[in-house]
C-alpha cells in the first residue's frame, strides 16, 4: 500500500525584503516578494528522502494561502513532490493559527494521509506551534522538532534536540512530524524538475469544499486580535572606533562606563 505523505508548506514574504503590516494589521503581501518558507524546504526534503526509502509513496504538498501561494507549491513540486493542493478563499484573509490549523486539518482529512510533515516554524509568524495543534486536532501522535527522522514499517522514529536533552522518539503512523533546519540541506530543483513541475496536478479547494463556514476563519473568525503594530524606533547610532592597537581597551572602557565591569 502506498505511503501517503502530505507536506504542509507556507508562502511567506521574503525575510530579506522590507516586511511590514498592511492597514488592517495583517502581513502586507503586496510590496514584498513572496516565496516558499525556507524552513519548509527542509520538510519537503525529508519527505523526498522518506519516499525514496519506501517501496511506494506519494507526496502531496498542501498550502493555505492567497493566489500567489501557488509559487510555493510549484517550488515544492519542482523539488520532486508529486501533486499539490491549494486551499484558497477570500474569506481566509487574516486567519490566526487556530483558524489556519482548522482549515489544514479539514484539508488533511479530505486528502487522506499516513504521514504529515511540516517545517519547524514559518519565517513570518514564527510561532512554531502549528504542528502540535494539527496533531491535537487530528488526534494522531505529535513527533515534532526532529533533526533526524526515519519511517519504517508503519512507525516513525527521530531525534529531538531539546533545550535540556536530546530525545529519541518513536510513534506509529499516522502521525504529524515537524523537522528542523538541522535535518539535512534541502536540494535545489533541477532543470528537469522545474519542467516536470509544470505538468504536475495542482488542485484548488475553497471553504465550501471543506465544509467550513466563512465566520470560522479570517479576521472575523480568529480567536486573537492585533490592536496595533508599530515600527521599532531605529536604534540610536552608536560609537564606532577603528582599532589602532587600543580597541580592546577602549571597548573595556565603554563597558565599565555602562557598569558591565
Amino acid at each position, binding site marked *: 500500500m502506498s505511503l501517503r505523505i502530505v507536506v504542509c508548506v507556507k508562502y511567506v514574504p521574503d525575510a530579506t525584503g522590507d516586511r511590514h503590516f498592511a492597514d488592517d494589521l495583517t502581513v502586507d503581501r503586496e510590496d514584498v516578494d513572496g516565496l516558499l518558507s525556507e524552513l519548509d524546504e527542509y520538510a519537503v526534503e525529508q519527505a523526498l528522502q522518506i519516499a525514496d526509502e519506501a517501496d511506494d509513496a506519494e507526496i502531496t504538498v498542501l498550502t493555505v494561502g492567497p493566489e500567489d501561494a501557488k509559487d510555493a507549491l510549484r517550488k515544492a513540486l519542482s523539488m520532486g513532490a508529486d501533486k499539490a493542493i491549494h486551499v484558497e478563499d477570500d474569506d481566509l484573509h487574516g486567519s490566526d493559527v487556530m483558524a489556519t490549523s482548522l482549515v489544514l486539518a479539514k484539508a488533511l482529512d479530505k486528502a487522506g494521509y499516513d504521514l504529515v510533515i511540516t517545517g519547524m516554524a514559518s519565517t513570518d509568524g514564527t510561532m512554531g506551534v502549528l504542528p502540535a495543534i494539527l496533531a491535537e486536532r487530528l488526534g494522531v*501522535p505529535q513527533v515534532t522538532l526532529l533533526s533526524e527522522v526515519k519511517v519504517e514499517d508503519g512507525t516513525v522514529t527521530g531525534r529531538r534536540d531539546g533545550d535540556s536533552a536530546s530525545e529519541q*522518539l518513536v510513534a506509529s503512523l499516522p502521525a504529524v512530524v515537524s523537522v528542523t533546519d538541522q535535518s539535512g540541506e534541502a536540494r535545489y530543483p533541477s532543470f528537469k524538475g522545474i519542467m516536470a513541475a509544470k505538468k504536475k496536478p495542482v488542485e484548488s479547494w475553497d471553504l465550501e469544499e471543506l465544509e467550513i463556514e466563512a465566520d470560522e476563519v479570517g479576521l472575523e473568525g480568529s480567536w486573537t486580535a492585533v490592536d496595533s503594530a508599530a515600527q521599532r524606533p531605529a536604534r540610536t547610532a552608536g560609537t564606532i572606533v577603528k582599532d589602532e592597537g587600543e580597541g*580592546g581597551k577602549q571597548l573595556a572602557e565603554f563597558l565599565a562606563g*555602562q557598569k558591565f565591569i
Partner: protein
Amino acid sequence: MAEVLVYVDHVDGAVRKPTLELLTLARRIGEPVAVALGAGAADTAAVLAEHGAVKVLTADAPEFAEYLVVPKVDALQAAYDSVSAAGSLAAVLVPSSAEGKEIAARLAVRIGSGIITDAVDLEAGDEGPVATQAAFAASFTTKSRVSKGTPVITVKPNSAPVEAAAAAGTVEALAVTFGALATGTKVVSRTPRESTGRPELTEAAIVVSGGRGVNGAENFHLIEELADSLGAAVGASRAAVDAGWYPHTNQVGQTGKSVSPQLYIASGISGAIQHRAGMQTSKTIVAINKDAEAPIFDLVDYGVVGDLFEVVPQLTGEIKARKG
C-alpha cells in the same frame, strides 16, 4: 480577584528564571496559581511562594518523562478545569520554550481559546490581557489580545524582572487522568546536555557570541574566555554552528535561541536578518568586526572595527585586570 495559571519550568524541583518572571507578569493580571509537573514538582513550592504563587498544584507520574508533550497537556488541562470551575480564570501563562509553546497550543485547542506566542510584555487591559510581541526580526512591535476563551499566552525569557512578593504557596495535589493520546509518542531515550557551568543562553544577563570570523573550533576559546571574564553565556551564529565549530544549542537567531540580555557582544558576525531576529531586542549591543560596512554596526551602541584576534584577547585581559 481572578486567578492566573502559571506553568512552571523546572529541573528536578529547581525553578528556572523565566517562570519567576512569569509570576511578575501574572500578578499584574490576577492571583498566580502555579502548576508544577514531574519529578521534584513539590520542591518548587517554596520559591514560587516567595514570588507570589498563592497555590501550587503539583502532579508526578512516569508518563511525564516517558511520553512527549501530551501528558503535560492533560495535566495542565486538569488544572484549568479545577481552577475555572472554582472561580474566574484570567489567563494561562507558559514560558516560551519549544516544549512550553507546544503544551500551551494544544491546551488552547482543547479549551477553545486563542493563543499568543512569544510575548515580550504583558499588561492588564479592559478586554483582557494585552501582549506585546516583536515581529519581523524585531523590526516591529505589536500589541495583541486573545479574543475568544481564556487567553493562553507564552512569554519569552527576560521579558520582566524577577520580583519578591511573598504569598501562601499552598501545595495541592492535582488529580490527572491521561487521555488516549497521552502515550502516542514514546521517549525511548534521553541524553541530557552536558553542563558547561556557564549561564543558560536564553536567561543570561550577558551573551558573548562568535561567528564565521572566529575561523575554527580551535579559536572559540577566545570567545569563551571573554564570556567567562564577564560571567556570560556563549552564543554562535549559524555559520559557526554549521561549520561544526560550536554546538547547535548555542545558536542565536531565527532557528536557534532568541536572546534578550542586558549586553550582547558579537565578534566576527556580519548581522544577517536571521541572526538579528534572535538578538535585536538586547539592551546594549557591542560588535567587533573587521569590515566597517558589516550590517551589525547598524545595531550597535559601541563597535570596534578591527581584527577580533587582536581586540578580543585585549578586551578579556583588560576586563580581568579591572576586576582584579
